[in-house]
């Protein structure tokens, strides 16, 4: 299924929640989804006969200076097509619904995005830091992140 | 398969696969070894090997391309534009040197041996050698000072540059005054540009780090 068809179906199904799409002249065609609707869209994308996106190949968080974004790379093992979904949330209220209940693999990806970018995944069962120590302050992949001088009495920059 | 045949089959297979394994290990035991006695015997290094960085300071023109190419910032260079009156000699490829390199340090402890600094060097003075035994007891010994200018030389160079700069500013001021005077005298004559001698290489445009 081409990206255009996927977009059309999603647009028909969710209307307003599908914000925009860039399907041509890009490396990977993507569809922007309203942050609040990502869970519903994901459920639909996984369970719909035409989509069957059963494989979440990557979930990445991005800091767009003022906005935080999450990118979902979906793939279907049965139908062998793919699509990219993107959501954006403001940095001061970075709440994105978790898709952990749909794709279990999102669990660690979302923990990583929470850890490094401070995106809050709603209804995530186990939202803890994963790569950094539990008592680390700040979210390093934010663009305005300042490296701390000391961590537990150890000098940080070498 | 009934339980009993499985039982005996398992026993048979354990014995036979153990025998196979023992045969293989015995065969390997009597076959020649593949290791070498390292400090006494050394492997031959291929031509392209990338180990310790070596820098031929005589050829360095101070362009700082290597420092920019380094992903881990292990090359530390300080340069100073030399007055054009000064002759700094030539590189072995015949390129004229125009910049004082007052400091050229490579912190080999930080080096990641990627070789990215080797490619941009215009005079091919940086290269990766096949020396791989250079551990030290003191970490500070791993900072290699390739620069050959002694502190006193650096001082004299600084003074020379300063003098030249002062001269230049004086000249410029004079020229400006002259130009102003000329302008006042006859507006038709276009002012001459400030004397541009020996335009520095492109890459130097963004090196404001020096004193």
């Amino acid at each position: 299924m081409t990206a255009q068809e996927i977009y059309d179906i999603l647009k028909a199904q969710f209307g307003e929640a599908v914000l925009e799409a860039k399907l041509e002249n890009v490396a990977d065609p993507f569809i922007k989804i309203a942050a609040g609707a990502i869970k519903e869209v994901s459920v639909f994308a996984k369970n719909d006969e035409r989509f069957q996106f059963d494989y979440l190949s990557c979930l990445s968080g991005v800091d767009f200076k003022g906005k935080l974004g999450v990118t979902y790379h979906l793939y279907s093992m049965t139908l062998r097509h793919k699509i990219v979904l993107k959501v954006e949330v403001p940095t001061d209220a970075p709440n994105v619904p978790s898709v952990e209940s749909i794709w279990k693999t999102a669990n660690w990806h979302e923990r990583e995005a929470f850890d490094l970018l401070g995106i809050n995944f709603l209804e995530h069962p186990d939202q803890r830091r994963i790569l950094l120590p539990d008592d680390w302050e700040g979210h390093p992949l934010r663009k305005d992140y300042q490296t701390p001088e000391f961590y537990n009495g150890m000098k940080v920059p070498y | 398969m009934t339980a009993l045949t499985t039982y005996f089959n398992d026993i048979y297979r354990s014995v036979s696969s153990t025998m196979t394994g023992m045969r293989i290990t015995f065969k390997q035991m009597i076959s020649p070894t593949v290791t070498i006695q390292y400090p006494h015997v050394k492997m031959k290094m291929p031509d392209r090997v990338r180990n310790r960085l070596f820098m031929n300071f005589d050829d360095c023109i101070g362009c700082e391309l290597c420092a920019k190419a380094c992903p881990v910032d292990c090359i530390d260079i300080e340069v100073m534009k030399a007055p054009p009156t000064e002759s700094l000699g030539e590189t072995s490829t015949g390129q004229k040197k125009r910049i004082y390199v007052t400091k050229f340090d490579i912190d080999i402890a930080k080096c990641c041996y990627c070789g990215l600094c080797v490619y941009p060097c215009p005079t091919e003075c940086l290269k990766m050698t096949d020396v791989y035994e250079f551990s030290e007891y003191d970490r500070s010994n791993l900072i290699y000072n390739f620069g050959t200018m002694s502190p006193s030389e650096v001082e004299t160079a600084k003074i020379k540059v300063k003098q030249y700069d002062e001269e230049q500013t004086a000249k410029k001021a004079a020229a400006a005054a002259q130009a102003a005077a000329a302008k006042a005298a006859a507006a038709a004559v276009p002012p001459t540009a400030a004397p541009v001698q020996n335009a520095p290489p492109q890459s130097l445009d963004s090196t404001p780090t020096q004193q």
Partner: protein
Amino acid sequence: MNELKLLLENPIVMSVLLAFVPIVFILVYALVTLYGEMKVAAHIQNRLAYMENGWHGTLQPFADILKLLQKEDIIPTAADKFLFSLAPYLVFVGTYASFAVLPFSSGFIGSNIDLGILYLVAASSLVVVGLLMSGWASNNKWSLFGSLRSAAQIVSYEIPGVLAILGVVMVLGTMNMQTMTQMQDGGIQNWLIFGGNFALGQKLALIPFMFILFVIYLLSSMAEVNRTPFDLPEAESELVQGYNTEYSGMKFAIFYLAEYANLFLVSAVVVILFFGGWTSPFGSFMGGPVWSAFWFIMKGMFFVFVNIWLRWTLPRLRVDQLMYVSWKVLTPFALFCIIAIGFIMVV
């Protein structure tokens, strides 16, 4: 001079002196095996191992021992200090005491008692106590795991091992190890693995059962000395180092020494039971006390080598499989052999 003679005739002094023979032997043997194991392992793996100290690294075991002696003797703060220190010695004592009844040659046996093999089985069981003690006293979960595993393992494998011994005892009708060996004297054809010194029909009937008993005993002896494929108590990829994780320096060395001594002990028992102990394979040719000591040690070392060879070939079993092998394979087979041997001996 007379006083010295008198002193030597004193039974206590004599036994103390005699007791030195095995310990000297163990020390020398441990060095040789340490070197041998490293070399065999290395050559199996296409490596060279020790090459630096002495000719082909022959002095390396001495250096290793010296290093272990110099090392700081660490006792963890939370450990039970008394038991922690006692355990390695207990392990060693159990093994060492068993050497008393080994007939090293036709002319030398520490204590020629009639219940030799029974004593050996009993004394070597002391090892379990030591291992359990070390694991418990270390106050380390991995160590505890290792020692519990080893206790379960050694106790389980004692049964097929003892049953195998029982089969041999039934054939030979004695528990005295010197007598056992003497009964197999007279050349390679008289060894029990080849049917022993019996009439031809009986001999041929005995051979398969003796072979099975030999394999059973070899396997259970390997399990008793905790060597691959039965090295679960110290499985380094699971339990770090098992019961001796917390040990260092001299105490660790003692564990090591005990393990190697135990290795020779069980190999020696295999030799005595099935391969004619110190008897020469050529009958009276190359016999005599000195040659017999040579044969005994050589045969023992051969089985040590087989142990090493197996160790570097096989992967490790899992706990439940270990128990499976003991209770469901070795023990029934051993019982079956005993019954069969009983029939053969009666008929």
